[in-house]
């Protein structure tokens, strides 16, 4: 009996040793020296060849789309012959170890190069042409906020709001409408104050809706609707003082095309701008930015706070209920601005900055770089919602010269919903360029002369996720830190707290933020909403 047990032990030990040795051998890097060249760069997904990346980005994991039985990638700092990272395996999904990647970028290389090797069916390795990615000296804001939704038509289902740490792959869900009591909440249009996470707003729709306002880490749910202004606020912009935020209030409807590639079309049937004052939580407006005969949308404060920029188009229809409205294909928004003195509450006159007719395009979503030098906009043939239009591109307005041009990072598919990093060097935006249907987040480096470098897709830990994901990454916003409020607290405020209303919620107040105002007015009876 004892002998038999001994034999069993010996056999088990030998087998374990064999398995261990085989495992070690299998993980040894294959010998690829002297293997033949394919004579072309590899096909990889996402395409990271020639892009410019920030020094604090997560590993650029990718999928090798070449037929093969084994794959190997060597990554090296530019000018450094010795690879810093070597990844190999049978899967074409290449994932770089986070620590090694971080060490590589911490050396502040001007570029990183990638050598891809693929073992073909006949057992031979093939080397593909090296490709590289430039590494910019300026870091990107470490957090990206977005919401994830499926392509939305009339109905809405699951919507989640996330923060993603772009230096790693960590993604936290801040809000999931499935966890709301009635499963009916929709959330959209988050706006951060100067890329800061501690001051922001996000709109919540549905029975428990309202505008969530986070100021200095304190969260509350605010009512922005008034008897005259029944639509909830959307698409906001903070005044540089942090005491005021501007929003649009729209009645947006969808219509559906029976032919062509894009099915959806969105129409802004009627819209105005409103302002929300943080000190007394009041909502007010002025006739100049809330004219019934005009459509006003996408407010954006200039970085010096002296002008409110927004998009404006004459409304060609009088019937706000017929869909599609008459002449909807001719609605083109111009970029205009109006002066505002926050201390006196004095409004100026409306000035046209970019005329839609002169451009031949509709101008939407103006966003200023933090230094105020550049303004990036989304331009499309007509109407309002660039994300539904394949021809929507990003344009750059040079505020110093007044010159406007299509940005190099635009594609032949919809490019929209852009956001600047706090240092003004990075632009995050949504694009449907990958498959024409699903908005994904891209980053582009903006040079000092405004040139946008080849953008790259937000890296994912599992690179196959890009190919198998039907969720849209909506409204990407770069932020300097994580959300200071926990997800459960956000949900609690939505579910349990009462709507906070300001003392001048009707807009009747004539008080401006800093003193006696002029021009703040009560919206006329029988207003548009």
């Amino acid at each position, binding site marked *: 009996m004892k002998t038999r047990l001994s034999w069993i032990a010996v056999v088990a030990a030998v087998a374990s040793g064999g398995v261990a040795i085989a495992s070690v051998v299998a993980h040894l890097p294959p010998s690829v020296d002297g293997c033949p060249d394919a004579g072309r760069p590899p096909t990889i997904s996402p395409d990271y060849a020639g892009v410019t990346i920030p020094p604090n980005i997560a590993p650029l994991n990718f999928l090798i789309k070449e037929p093969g039985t084994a794959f190997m990638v060597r990554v090296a700092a530019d000018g450094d012959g010795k690879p810093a990272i070597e990844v190999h395996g049978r899967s074409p999904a290449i994932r770089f170890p986070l620590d090694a990647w971080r060490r590589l970028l911490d050396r502040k290389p001007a570029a990183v190069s990638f050598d891809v090797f693929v073992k073909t069916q006949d057992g031979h390795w093939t080397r593909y042409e090296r490709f590289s990615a430039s590494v910019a000296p300026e870091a990107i804001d470490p957090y990206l906020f977005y919401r994830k939704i499926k392509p939305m*038509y009339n109905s809405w289902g699951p919507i989640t709001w996330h923060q993603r740490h772009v230096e790693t792959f960590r993604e936290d869900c801040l809000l999931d409408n499935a966890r709301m009591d009635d499963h009916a909440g929709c959330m959209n249009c988050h706006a951060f104050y100067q890329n800061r996470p501690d001051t922001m707003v996000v709109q919540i729709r549905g029975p428990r809706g309202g505008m969530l306002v986070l100021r200095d880490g304190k969260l509350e749910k605010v009512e922005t609707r008034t008897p005259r202004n029944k639509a909830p606020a959307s698409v906001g912009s903070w005044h540089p003082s942090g005491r005021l935020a501007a929003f649009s209030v729209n009645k947006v409807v969808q219509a559906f095309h*029976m032919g062509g590639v894009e099915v959806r079309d969105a129409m802004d049937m009627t819209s105005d701008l409103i302002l929300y004052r943080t000190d007394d939580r009041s909502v007010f407006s002025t006739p100049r930015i809330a004219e019934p005969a005009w459509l006003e949308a996408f407010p954006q404060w200039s970085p010096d706070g002296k002008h409110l920029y927004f998009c404006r188009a004459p409304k060609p229809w009088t019937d706000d209920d017929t869909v599609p409205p008459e002449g909807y294909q001719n609605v083109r928004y111009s970029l205009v601005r109006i002066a505002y003195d926050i201390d006196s509450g004095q409004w100026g006159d409306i000035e046209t900055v970019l005329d839609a007719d002169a451009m031949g395009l509709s101008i939407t979503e103006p966003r200023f770089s933090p230094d105020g030098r550049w303004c990036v906009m989304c331009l499309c043939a007509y109407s309002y919602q660039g994300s539904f239009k394949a021809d929507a591109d990003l344009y750059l307005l040079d505020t110093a010269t007044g010159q406007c041009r299509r940005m190099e990072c635009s594609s032949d598919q919809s490019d929209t919903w852009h956001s600047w990093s706090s240092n003004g060097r990075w632009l995050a935006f949504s694009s449907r360029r990958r498959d024409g249907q*699903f908005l994904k987040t891209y980053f582009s480096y903006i040079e000092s002369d405004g040139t946008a470098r080849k953008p790259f897709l937000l890296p994912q830990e599992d690179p196959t996720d890009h190919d198998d994901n039907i969720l849209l990454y909506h409204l990407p916003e770069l932020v300097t830190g994580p959300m200071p409020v926990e997800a459960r607290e956000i949900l609690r405020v939505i579910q349990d707290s009462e709507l906070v209303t300001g003392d001048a919620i009707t807009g009747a107040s004539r008080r401006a933020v800093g003193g006696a105002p002029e021009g703040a007015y009560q919206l006329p009876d029988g207003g548009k909403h």
Partner: protein
Amino acid sequence: MTTVVPKRLTWLAAKGIVLRYLLLLAAFYAYVLLVVDTRLIHDRYISVSMRFSRTWDHLLARLDQTGALVAYAAGWLHQYYCHGPLGAAILTLVAAALAAGLDLWMPVRRNSWLRLLSFLPAVGLLVAANYYDLKLPHPGGPLLYALGLLLALLAANVHAHLPSRRLHIRIASGLILAVIVYHAGGAIYSVARGAGEATGRIYLPGPLPIFVGLAVVRELWTRWLAAAARQAARSKTQATTRSPAAAVAVWLVQLAILAGAGAAVAQATRQPDLRMSFQLDFCRHHGLWGEFLEVAARITPDQFAHVARSRPSDAFCLNHDINRALCHQGRLLDDMFAYPQAPGGLLLVDRTDRTKEFIRPEVERYAAAFLELGRVNAAEHAAHELLQVDGDRPATLRLLAEVNIVKDQRPAAQTFLGYLRQLRTSPCHERWAGDLLEHYRLHGEFPLDERLRRIRQWNLRDDYILRYSSVFDDMQRLLESNPNNRMAFEYLVADCLLNRRWDDLADQLDRFKALGYARLPRHVQEGLMLYTAGPNARVSRDRFVCDAAVRRTYERFGRTVMIVRQRGGARPQTLRALAADPELVRTYFWYVYSTFVPVEGPAR
């Protein structure tokens, strides 16, 4: 008196128990395969029920719930119902394991009559299968409960067969096993995830209480048997022996009882209407239109009327499905009035637009019909609404993939197919998506079968924004875009017939020739007969050729009406007289007459 079966029996008697198991399980397998058909359960499950995914993410997301492993195993096995023979084998094996587990648990294994009880759970599974899992709508259906019971039996057998005579040791070991297998999976995971996160539900109706019950019963039973044996020994009762022939006879009687009881239960719980409904859905989802019409032909007028009264939306859907099946079989304009018809049931859009409700079965149907008609954008819109409201159903994702293949939006189609494949929701859909993706990888394009090629050809080219959906206008648009769109043409003509648009019907006469119809379809002839009989007809009867049979039917119809009227019969009597003739009921004449609402004249 105790009956003792002799040890030396004939082969049949000795192996009888095993043979009986095999025979009954073979019958069970055949019944599930041929009568129940697990494919119908699977098809229904992925169409309307909660979604189960075989991914690790799905398991991990639920591991903090007790019984998560069992639920996962049940859901995993349930997915393979999509293959009929495999599904039947899974159910049979689970039934066999339950029977064996119960048999092993019983303390009176030498009593062949009591051992018959071990088949009870298998009979329960059969009943659940007869109800197509509807009574237990949990992912995995009755499998979940069957696997839970199996675990309880496993624990109970450990308890019963441990050599230790100490009761508390045996109970403790059985309990520990039950807890570990069923409950601890979630608990361990919760602890591993960190404190405060263990918020899983306590899901007690698992095997624990069953195990406790089984253990108690077993203990009491064993004690009672022991007491009975002691008493028998005291009374010195002579044990009787049974001859091999008698043992075989008993075996045969038991087999007959089991088979008879099983057959009786199966027959008593069989749900032919449910099966018919599931079968219709299955045929519709898989485009088996010939089979669909065979099943639909078994629906009686009373059943139609009952559905129309109790579930109007279902009646419209059934109406729509039958018309679509008839169209695919080239019989729409010849046979549509052999079935009850309502205008809203042709394409369902009129109905839905009127009610402004999101009725999932209707949206699902007209999305598929739009695609086949060439209204690809409308199909895409409807499919996206389904995706939002109804979640990631494989059929919806498949439809969206097909939409994008037809529109030649290859990257988008690839994304939908990739998503469908990685959902791990239905092996059959995964294989379909995987095959297409592989073809795309090799050739850079998706294969177009005849159906998709035809849809691409019919795809609406003109762009316009839909304000209001009307079948007639929509079909007109499709025909303007592609005059060869035969399906749109047949739907347009059907709409004319249903709504008595006889002027418009007459306007289509030239199109029949252009589209290559060898003869005018029967219902069209009937419609034109009625039209030309009226005073305002814009065409005369010599414009079309009418079959002699249609002419005869027309005359017979008119004669029947006249006879009843001459006898002083009012409209109800006329309808009864016409309804008595099955041939007349299948005509357009009957549809027009029976649905005619007379306008009341001025009071005399």
